[in-house]
C-alpha cells in the first residue's frame, strides 16, 4: 500500500474529531468543508503537530499507531501553512535549504528543478521581509518540497492572497500538480480552486470525513466566477441567448 491511510479520534477543547480517510499514492486530494469542521486539526494530526489517538501509515511506513507516535521532525511530511510562515531571519535561499539540509532522504526533488518549477530564481538572494503574498507562498511550497516529503499538506495556501496574487500563483500550482509524484492534501473551500487543482475531494463535517469523491471536471468548473461572468458576457455580446 503506497498511499496514505489514517484515522484519528479524540477531543480538543469542545471539538471532537472522528476522522477516517485514505489518499491515493499520487494526485491532489482536496479537503473541503465548512469552517470549524476540523480540516486544519486533521492536517495537524497528520503532520504530528497535534496528538490524538489513532493510526497513520504513509507509503508503507507507520507514522502512528497504538505504540508509535513519530514526532513531526521524524515524519517525511511537507507542510504549507495558511500564512506561509517563512523564517524571518533567513534569506529565501536559506528558507528553501532549511529542510533540505536536514533530510537524509535521497533528493528526488532537486533544488534547481524546484526553483525552475516555482519561478523562484529572481527571489533567491532576497530577504523574506518584502516579498508579496504570492511570492511568500511559492517559497513556502518550494521549502516544503525540498525537504523530500512522502506527503504534502497544504492548509488553504491561497486564502490570504488577493485576486491578483492568486492569479499569479495558480499556474505554478497547476505545474506542481502535474509534476508531483507524491500524494498531496489540499485544504480549500473554494470550489473553483478545487476543480482546477484537485483530482479527488474529501468533505469534512463536524469532525467526520465523508468518503472521497472524484472531482467533476467540465469546461467551466475550473474557472473562477469572475471568469465565468466574463465568458457569459462575451457570449451575450456575440449574440447568443442564455438558456431559459
Amino acid at each position, binding site marked *: 500500500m503506497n498511499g496514505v491511510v489514517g484515522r484519528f479520534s479524540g477531543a480538543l477543547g469542545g471539538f471532537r474529531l472522528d476522522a477516517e480517510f485514505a489518499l491515493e499514492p499520487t494526485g491532489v486530494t482536496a479537503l473541503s468543508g465548512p469552517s470549524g469542521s476540523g480540516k486544519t486539526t486533521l492536517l495537524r494530526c497528520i503532520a504530528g*503537530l497535534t496528538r490524538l489517538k489513532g493510526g497513520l501509515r504513509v507509503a508503507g511506513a507507520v507514522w502512528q499507531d497504538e505504540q508509535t507516535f513519530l514526532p*513531526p521532525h521524524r515524519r517525511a*511530511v511537507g*507542510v504549507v*501553512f495558511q500564512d506561509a510562515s517563512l523564517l524571518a531571519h533567513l534569506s529565501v535561499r536559506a528558507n528553501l535549504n*532549511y529542510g533540505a539540509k536536514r533530510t537524509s532522504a535521497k533528493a528526488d526533488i532537486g533544488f534547481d528543478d524546484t526553483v525552475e518549477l516555482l519561478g523562484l530564481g529572481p527571489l533567491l538572494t532576497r530577504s523574506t521581509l518584502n516579498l508579496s503574498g504570492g511570492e511568500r507562498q511559492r517559497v513556502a511550497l518550494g521549502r516544503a518540497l525540498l525537504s523530500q516529503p512522502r506527503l504534502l499538506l497544504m492548509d488553504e495556501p491561497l486564502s490570504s492572497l488577493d485576486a491578483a496574487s492568486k492569479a499569479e500563483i495558480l499556474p505554478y500550482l497547476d505545474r506542481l500538480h502535474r509534476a508531483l509524484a507524491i500524494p498531496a492534501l489540499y485544504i480549500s473551500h473554494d470550489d473553483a480552486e478545487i476543480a482546477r487543482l484537485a483530482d479527488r475531494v474529501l468533505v469534512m463535517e463536524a469532525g467526520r470525513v465523508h468518503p472521497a469523491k472524484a472531482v467533476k471536471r467540465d469546461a467551466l468548473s475550473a474557472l473562477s466566477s469572475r471568469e465565468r461572468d466574463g465568458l457569459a458576457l462575451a457570449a451575450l455580446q456575440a449574440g447568443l441567448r442564455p438558456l431559459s
Partner: protein
Amino acid sequence: MSEVVWTTLRLAGLTTVLLLILATPIAWWLAGRRAWWREVVAAVTTLPIILPPSVLGFYLLIAIAPQSPLMGLLHPFGLRTLAFTFQGLVIGSMVYSLPFAVQPIRGAFEAMGPRPMEVAATLRATPIDAFFTIALPLSRRGFATAAILVFAHTIGEFGVVLMIGGGIPGKTEVISVRIYQLVESLQYGQAHRLAAGVVAFSFAALLALLLIGRQTDEAVL
C-alpha cells in the same frame, strides 16, 4: 581607583553571561502553554524587583554562610562559605537581576509564538536544533535587551553587594560601594569622578535599549 572599576566590570560581565544562560531555559518554560502554577514560578522569579535589597541581601547571606544547608552540600568540595567573596557576589547579583533577564527573553519567545518552531519541526529539525537555529535568532532582540538590563542593573546595585560582599577592596568592593565610602569620608572630588562615570554609562545603556526597541521594521515573524 581602577581596581574598583575592574572588579565592578568583571562582576557585571560574569553575572550577565551566567544569567543569560540560566534565564533562557526558565524563560522558555514560562513562555509555554498557560497554567496558573506557571505564574507562581513567574512571580517568584520577579520577586527581586520589588523586594528591598536588604531583605534579599539578608537571605542570601544566610544561604551562603558556613552553617547553611546549601553550603553544607558544598562542604565535600572544600567550600565552606561564599559570604564576602567574589563568587558569592556573582551569585547574589544573579538572583538580584534574575527578573531583568527572564522578562525580556520570555517576552521575545512569546512574541515569536509557536509557529516558527512548528515550521522547523515539519522541516526535520529536532527540537534542540530548532531552538538554536530558529528560536534564538528570532529572539535576539530580547537577549540584547536582557544583556544590557542585567549589566546596567548589576553596575547599579548597592544594598545586596554591600551586605553579602562587605566592600573588601580588590575583592568585593564595587563602584557604588566605593562612592558611598568616599562620600562618608567627604572625598567629594573622587566621588564625583566615579559618579559621573556611572551616570554617563547608565545613559548610554538606556539609549542602547531604546534604539533596540525602535527597530520595529524587522518583523519578528
